[in-house]
């Protein structure tokens, strides 16, 4: 654990990417694999789930510090991070005990918390706090409360590991895919300089992600060198058939086997040794259904016949990454697409190959993009015909050119502090529109303002608070913001009766007053126009 604490301090004490990679690589080179495995696991965003509840932890913090519950609560609201609050409030140990190695702490102290009853759990945590102080305690608290977000992205960890292994980051990213388990063997394989021969056949390839196109497509050069297709609003997924087995992975690296039986059924006729990249979409009679329909399938591990009938799903294939067991990712897109057509020849009806968007000149694209909404797509994808299938979000070969979002003007009604970096600023806002004589909340948004605007708004919120409900403050309805969103559907869970998709702040409309804000009827008109599906 000492090494891990030193690594965290090194990462926390710099804002430079190169220094962070240097610190990570230095750590991975020296660390025993039993500990390195856990470090990779936590640093790439994995966490131990359901160990202790936040309510319990706050109660124990009050107990350890001798402070009243309400003062622990006020402190938490001020700090904004529970792990840090607990670290700051519980008394420091009188003497610094030797820290156990990371794997021992995780496997013998932290992970077993899940199986203990409340009293045993409390005794265990209070005992650990009595021995572990300072930064080590902060990390311990981070591990028992969930994700260890310490200013290091998965990409950075991948780059550092690749440097240690002496292999390409793409290979390393691939090694981290799938059900990566924190065992010493896995860690050794991760930093091995040798070729990956006997890879687990279920492991997907790292996804290649498109970047948003900020200027017009004509900036991309010769139109003939580009392939266009619709951008589907579903779940990005990889369909793998290897050694007679089928695997379905989401972009979030979640294994989705069993969740989309109609797709799996259609995939049985695919040849062995193929990996197909595509999008899971709610789909009926040759038409896409809104994302809100697909949402009914997300999280259903074993959908019943009723759900399957109400929300049917298809897999829209758009790339081929492996053919006859050979990695195709270096082949040009045109070749991969030609092979994809051949491979899909025998697939069932729930695996589709949507046609390319034909165009000859860039000037044809704006009108096509403008038709996105009526086609039920998010916009256009532009892919360079000669490009390989890359790893992660690399600019240059894949661009997404999304349709302009919907917008409305809403009134700021509630605010609450953010987390982590934004822990003592009000950064989470709720916006409302007029409905009759009142204002009804319709959207929460967390992003879209500059740092300077966030700070200015924070000061305004503090000075114009009406009421406090725990960390949430209601404010005087004065400030109007233009919000953008991607879609709208009916919702019985929201007082307003509508749910917006991806709401975010577009602009602070200082020029508008509350009277100028939109009305719920304006949103309902959009809803009617979209013919969105009902939420169950």
């Amino acid at each position, binding site marked *: 654990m000492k090494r891990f604490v030193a690594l965290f301090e090194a990462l926390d004490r710099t*804002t430079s990417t190169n220094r962070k990679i240097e610190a990570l690589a230095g750590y991975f080179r020296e660390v025993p694999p039993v500990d390195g495995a856990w470090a990779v696991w936590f640093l790439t965003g994995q966490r131990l789930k359901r160990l202790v509840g936040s309510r319990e932890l706050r109660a124990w913090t009050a107990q350890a510090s001798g402070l*009243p519950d309400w003062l622990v609560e*006020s402190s938490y609201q001020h700090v904004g*991070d529970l792990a*840090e*609050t607990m670290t700051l409030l519980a008394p420091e140990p009188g003497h610094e005990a030797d820290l156990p190695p990371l794997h021992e702490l995780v496997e013998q102290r932290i992970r077993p918390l899940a199986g203990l009853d409340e009293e045993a759990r409390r005794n265990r945590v209070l005992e650990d706090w009595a021995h572990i102080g300072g930064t080590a305690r902060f990390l311990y608290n981070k591990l028992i409360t969930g994700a260890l977000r310490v200013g290091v992205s998965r990409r950075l960890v991948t780059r550092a590991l690749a440097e240690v292994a002496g292999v390409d980051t793409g290979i390393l990213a691939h090694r981290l895919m799938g059900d990566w388990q924190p065992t010493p063997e896995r860690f050794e394989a991760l930093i091995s300089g040798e070729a990956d021969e006997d890879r687990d056949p279920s492991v997907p390839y790292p996804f290649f992600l498109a970047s948003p196109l900020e200027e017009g497509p004509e900036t991309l050069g010769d139109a003939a060198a580009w392939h266009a297709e619709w951008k589907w609003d579903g779940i990005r997924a990889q369909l793998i058939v290897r050694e007679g087995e089928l695997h379905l992975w989401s972009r979030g690296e979640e294994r989705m086997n069993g969740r989309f039986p109609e797709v799996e059924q259609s995939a049985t006729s695919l040849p062995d040794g193929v990996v197909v990249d595509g999008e899971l979409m709610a789909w009926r009679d040759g038409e896409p259904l809104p994302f809100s329909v697909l949402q009914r399938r997300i999280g259903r591990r074993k959908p019943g016949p009723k759900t399957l009938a109400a929300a049917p799903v298809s897999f829209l294939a758009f790339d081929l990454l492996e053919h006859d067991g050979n990695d195709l990712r270096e082949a040009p897109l045109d070749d991969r697409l030609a092979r994809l057509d051949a491979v899909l020849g025998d697939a069932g009806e729930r695996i589709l190959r949507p046609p390319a968007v034909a165009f000859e000149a860039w000037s044809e694209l704006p009108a096509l993009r403008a038709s996105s909404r009526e086609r039920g797509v998010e916009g256009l994808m532009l892919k360079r015909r000669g490009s390989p299938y890359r790893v992660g979000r690399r600019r240059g070969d894949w661009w997404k050119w999304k349709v302009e979002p919907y917008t409305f003007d809403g009134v700021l009604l509630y605010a609450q502090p953010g987390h*982590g*970096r934004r822990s003592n600023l009000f950064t989470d806002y709720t916006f409302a529109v007029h409905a009759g004589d009142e204002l009804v909340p319709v959207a929460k948004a967390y992003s879209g303002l500059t740092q300077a605007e966030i700070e200015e708004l924070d000061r305004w919120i503090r*000075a114009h608070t009406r009421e406090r409900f725990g960390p949430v403050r209601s404010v005087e309805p004065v400030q109007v913001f233009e919000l953008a969103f991607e879609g709208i559907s009916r919702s019985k869970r929201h007082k307003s009766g509508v749910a917006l998709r991806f709401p975010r702040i577009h602009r602070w409309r200082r020029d508008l007053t509350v009277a100028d804000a939109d009305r719920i009827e304006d949103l309902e008109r959009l809803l009617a126009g979209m013919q969105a599906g009902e939420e169950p």
Partner: protein
Amino acid sequence: MSADNLLQPSEGGLYCRAGGFWIDPLRPVERSIVTHAHADHARGGSGEVHTAREGLAILGQRVGDSDRHAGHDWGEPFVLGDTRVTLHPAGHILGSAWVRIESEQGTWGVSGDFKRAPDPTCRPFEPADVDVWVTECTFGLPVYRWPEPAEVVQDILEWWDGCRAEGRPAVLFCYALGKAQRVLAELAHRTADDGRRAWLHGAMLPLVRIYREAGIAMLPTTPVSEARRGQSFAGELVVAPPSAAGSTWMRRFPNHSAGFVSGWMKIRGNRRRRGYDRGFVMSDHADWPALVDTVEDMRARRVITIHGSGEALAGYLSSRGLDAGSWNLRATLARDGS
């Protein structure tokens, strides 16, 4: 606020009717007592200004009007209206005072800003009995517990040594009045005679000079403005106010490491949001334990919190059986629309 209160919030400070004066008003008044020269306590334009003799030079530099400033010695009472006023060291910065007012409405103490931790640049806080203790509360939550200043100075020194080893400028941000001089004085004790110097931002110069004239030993300093063309700051310590962060002035220090010395650095989110590489937790204010202990040291039967998270401290003291409340001084400015 009952009518028998000796003090009441007014003009962003506290008004004493019996004495006919304000303490730390933020708007010009006829007669005031100024605890210290920080901008949230001292503003120019008042008629008659009483302050600690040790703080006269700094106050004059900050707000001007020095012909209207009357300096008082520590512990020497003076009469204002129907009250007897005494200034005692508050330990916040050079010349900072807390105010003790004796009157028919009892004895009140107004803390100004204060701390209890050792500081080589000023006299330590001196407690005395009061009936009512009006206390600042800038860091009035139990998450604020300061580490030993000696440890923090050691951390700063190790960080500077690290920068020297890597050939990077070490840019240390701290408030221009008080913190900068405290850090320079602490560093002088630690690096005696090894020839180290620090570079100073222009905003620091007059205040550092006043501290030197008061006999405070500090690290030798050179203004950055006197650096020759093409001067390399690799491995050098540069002391600058937080307002310089992100300014074009910083372009002189490529590849620098940025540190900030402040009590706010106790919270990780504060440091990360501002993008400092290092936060050094050293404050010129009392931390939570010191706020609570000082109430006891003053043997006050009633406590009023002002400035900062006052509600939490007042609530905590109430839960321990004290008569405690919180006053909002800023509200007295907002009410009439300024």
